[in-house]
């Protein structure tokens, strides 16, 4: 669609509501399940808006190929991958440059949380599959991947939770959808460990003054704190379910 036609579409109405009916500081609906795959050592699934993302963790296991093994800690490997049918135009299965960059920044967002030094010479392999993409896939992926790591029994300092905030038609908004990300003025995803005030991912595209930047970071952190609760409930639900199964 040519830029001109797009500009006509209003992303925020007179009452300050967004096109999907949300208030500026409102998250999209989030649904998280932990332990959804039978083969992986840990797994999780998230739906956040139209995002549908699945992750599986294998490890700690033998590093392959061997020469990658680290003498003093585990090797954390991460592949962020999109299904060909996850986006409007079919995506080639070969990894795109964007997927390679996201694999790196997601790994670096999770790595500060994991006690890798407990498992020297092994490999912990995280596979993230985007089944349907929407705005904020990297954030949803991190939120859910840290649960998959927990489900695999990997010890962590804290869960890592992620959320974006940004600017759309001059207003700061939380948890951007696809249209808001593409047509808005700024998108700023943050990954965070709330209990130790650690920002583990920070990226931005767009244009923000220094003042707006500070506000946007704080809005994203507020989103993180809300999602953190949902994360913990999802983890609890898995173990309650397990307990019930055990007690049956």
């Amino acid at each position, binding site marked *: 669609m040519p830029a001109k036609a797009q500009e006509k579409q209003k992303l925020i109405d007179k009452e300050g509501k967004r096109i999907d009916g949300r208030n500026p500081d409102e998250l999209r609906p989030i649904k998280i399940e932990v332990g959804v795959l*039978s*083969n992986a050592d840990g797994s999780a699934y998230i739906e956040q808006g139209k995002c549908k993302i699945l992750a599986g963790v294998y490890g700690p296991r033998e590093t392959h190929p061997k020469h990658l093994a680290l003498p003093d800690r585990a090797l954390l490997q991460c592949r962020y991958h999109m299904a060909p*049918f996850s986006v409007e*135009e079919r995506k080639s*299965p070969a990894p795109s440059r964007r997927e390679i960059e996201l694999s790196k920044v997601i790994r670096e967002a999770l790595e500060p949380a994991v006690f890798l030094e407990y498992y020297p010479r092994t490999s912990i392999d995280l596979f993230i599959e985007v089944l349907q993409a929407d705005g904020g896939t990297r954030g949803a992926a991190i939120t859910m991947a840290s649960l998959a790591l927990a489900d695999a029994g990997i010890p962590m300092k804290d869960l890592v939770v992620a959320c974006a905030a940004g600017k759309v038609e001059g207003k700061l908004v939380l948890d951007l959808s696809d249209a808001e990300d593409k047509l808005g003025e700024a998108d700023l995803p943050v990954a965070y460990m709330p209990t130790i005030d650690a920002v583990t991912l920070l990226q931005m595209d767009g244009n923000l003054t220094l003042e707006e930047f500070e506000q946007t970071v704080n809005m994203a952190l507020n989103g993180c704190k809300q999602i953190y609760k949902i994360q913990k409930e999802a983890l609890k639900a898995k173990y309650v379910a397990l307990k019930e199964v055990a007690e049956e």
Partner: protein
Amino acid sequence: MASVMVKVKQKQIAQLIAHGKRLDGREPNDYRPIKIEVGVIEKAEGSARVKIGNTEVLVGTKVDVGEPFPDTPEEGVLTVNAELVPLASPSFETGPPDENSIELARIVDRGIRESKAIATEELCLEPGKKVIIVFIDVYVLNHDGNLIDASALAALAAIMNTKMPKYEIVNGEVKKKPGYIPLPIRNYPVPATFAKINGKMIVDPWLEEEQVMDARLTMTFDKDGNICAIQKGGIGHFTVQQILDAAKIGQQKSADIRKLVVKE
């Protein structure tokens, strides 16, 4: 130790099958429970998730416009691709498709193509120049054996679920008109896969059975019960009689499973 336990279990599986029994309690000709959901990926033109026991496969379709093959200038193009994504099994690796995923895609492709399930001659927009391309992407999410049947079934359900845009040619350029129409589906190919273990034939092997099987035989049947595709796999062999027997059983199994997808 693990490896010793594996061998004990494998021996047990083989011995049970010699007596017509299976470790999970099934009869030789029983499938595991099959669950089919369609329309699970809204951004795909069609989609279906199929579970056979713990085996789980997601298929999404995308529709686009492109050039026909030179030898079929008046027919749409069908492209099947399969990915054994590494979260589905510790034995799957990242990287370009290996022989297993290529074989899987080609078996699924063959069933659809040879049964003429999609009326590709209705997918021509401008002979020799512009035709509709249907991408069928098979995504294996959890591997617990018999990926072929799960993938082929999910692919069938996904193409039946597919809605494509209405196209027209205006001044040599392809335009979309408002609205969507279903893909023209003319047949409903469904495979039945057998494993030979310890000299006996069973259907729908799960992972532990696949690890001890000598050979694998997949027969795909169309809606009239005719065979439209066959693939033998594995490093063992079949006797001629085993093959002829499998064809009869497979025809029945395939008809039963078809009813889960094709509601009359």
